[in-house]
């Protein structure tokens, strides 16, 4: 599904990613772990097309097409979804309208008919209920006045409604209590299937107990320095990143 080869990227001419090689086959969930500042969030942003990051080398193909040549909205239409580490507040934008606009834009790009407000609300309410979100979160402005946990759940709600092929979850577990964590993990697990892959960026083994990855990768200083099975995450929980991270120059 996702093939990353030699990917290097910088922001404000400062290199962050220094040659990433990563393959996520269809149907698999891969975890990305690593110390702060190793480039985990940058990887998520570069894959979803944020324009202030400049790709300086490498290729990314997504289901056989060149992802890096696509605009952010085209990537979303193709099935890429980034759950933001710090979801953006949109004062004056009603959450339900936002979600419907997004869903209909994606449906339009696939030549599908748009959902009207009634059809959409039925879908959104059902998904919100599954995520144990109060109905009024659909009526409120996007992420405005949401608690940290509500913002993260709102990201998962968007994912559940937009049904991406590749979900990139950037520390979606941080700031969640254990119940919310299970809800988030269940939300991702519900999408798991042969046509769905996920990159789960996390600091904690905790999430991976509920959302068991096929592979775990350790990112340090812009490179993947170690890959392994689910056990790797448990080892890291005990030993930390010492020994994996090259000494700072």
């Amino acid at each position, binding site marked *: 599904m996702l093939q990353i080869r030699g990917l290097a990227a910088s922001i404000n001419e400062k290199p962050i990613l220094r040659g990433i090689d990563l393959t996520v086959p269809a149907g698999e969930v891969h975890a990305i772990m690593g110390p702060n500042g190793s480039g985990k969030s940058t990887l998520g942003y570069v894959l979803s097309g944020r324009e202030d990051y400049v790709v300086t080398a490498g290729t990314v193909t997504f289901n056989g097409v060149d992802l890096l040549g696509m605009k952010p909205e085209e990537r979303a239409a193709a099935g890429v979804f980034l759950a933001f580490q710090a979801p953006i507040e*949109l004062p004056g934008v009603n959450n339900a309208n936002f979600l419907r606009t997004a869903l209909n*834009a994606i449906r339009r790009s696939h030549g599908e008919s748009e959902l009207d407000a009634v059809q959409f609300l039925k879908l959104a309410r059902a998904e919100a209920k599954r995520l144990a979100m109060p109905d009024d979160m659909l009526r409120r402005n996007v992420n405005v006045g949401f608690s940290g946990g509500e913002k993260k759940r709102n990201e998962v709600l*968007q994912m559940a409604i937009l049904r991406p092929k590749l979900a990139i979850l950037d520390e979606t577990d941080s700031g969640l209590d254990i119940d919310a964590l299970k809800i988030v993990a269940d939300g991702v697990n519900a999408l798991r299937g042969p046509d769905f892959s996920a990159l789960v960026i996390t600091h904690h083994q905790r999430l991976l107990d509920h959302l068991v990855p096929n592979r775990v990768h350790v990112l340090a200083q812009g490179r993947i320095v170690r890959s392994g099975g689910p056990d790797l995450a448990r080892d890291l929980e005990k030993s930390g990143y010492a020994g994996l991270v090259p000494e700072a120059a």
Partner: protein
Amino acid sequence: MNAPVSLGAAGFLARYDAARHLLSGDPSVRDAAAEAFRRSGLPGGTSARRPEAWKYTSLRPIAETALQSLADDRDVSALLARVPALDSPLVVFVDGRFRADLSNPPAGFSTFAKQPEFGDLARPDRDPMTALNTMLAEDGARLRIAAGGDAGVVRLVSLATGAETLHPRHVLHLEPGARLTVLDVSIGDGTYLHNPVTEAHVGADAHLIHVRLQDESADAFHLATLYVDVAAAGTYDGFTLNLGGRLTRAEFHVGLTGAAAVAHLNGAQLLTGTQHADFTSVVRHAEPHGTSRQTVRNVLAGRSRGVFQGRIEVARGAQKTDGYQMNQALLLSPDAEIDSKPELEIFADDVKCSHGATVGELDAEQLFYLRSRGIPDQEARALLVRAFLQEGLDDVTDARIHAIMEASVQGWWDRQSAQAITERANATKAVGA
């Protein structure tokens, strides 16, 4: 169709001299106003220096434009159809004249034509457009709400179809404890000057909500001057939505003359092309514990220009005054311009007053967030502009009127075509890149 006329100050004065003997009301008031107007002229209308109050807005275009009245007795049904539907009393002025046949006035309504009194708040000696209005006013709404009464919503509508100039004189009078919501709508066709002067007296504990919807013809000049007096614990809650007109100004003079009086002077302006819109206000806190709140939002596309002049004056005895003003502008084009001049003049020592201004383009992070969800760039930009306005409209708390304002913004949006606006926004981005 009548021949177009250009009316500089001299033209207006000649018109006054010709009509003087026909005009009702106290001739000495009109003569004094004419004398003041003779001295001031149209601000910027001649090479004479412009007063500070008109620093950013010149009325020279009025003097240089051929105002053209359309045929007399035109069918007003098309304009009437644009009057917001609401189950409420309706007062309609066509070309500045009250039209009983089109109206359903509330109790306590009369007209300036019947009672030509100029009121005691307006300052023709100081304000040139008020002088002009005082010279030439022929009609207007007079509405008095009895003590403790709740008059609900009244629609006050100006339709311009046939006249070159309209100088209506409106007076709203809320006795103590009275409540009233006025939806004040200006629409029209053609090239004309609409120069309304409105006085609002808000009695003790009375509550006036005044929502102004300015959706004049694209070639029109709209210069509204409003004088408001708020007595103890009374509230004037004003909101202005500026959509139409070529050159427009809303000028407020608000006196909080009783303790714990409240004034809200919020607004939103959506400008495109070469539109110029000026939002000017002076709020004077004369007594303690008063509150004034003002947030004006500007969306500026094309080569449009927005002006904000806000002044809060706090008298020596007006302790515990709480004053706030904010001007926010979203520039969608490199050629759009905002001029912002907030001022505080404080003579009391125990007050809380603040002001500020923001000018910016659309937020890049918000834009990326929307696009990352599949919303195309132009649609995302349009959505963010609407959101910026939506926050302003939320100052209108009456749900029915809020819906009317939203529909008006939608209508504006449909007319302008979001495409053109977002294309200009892209041009901005290219310059910034």
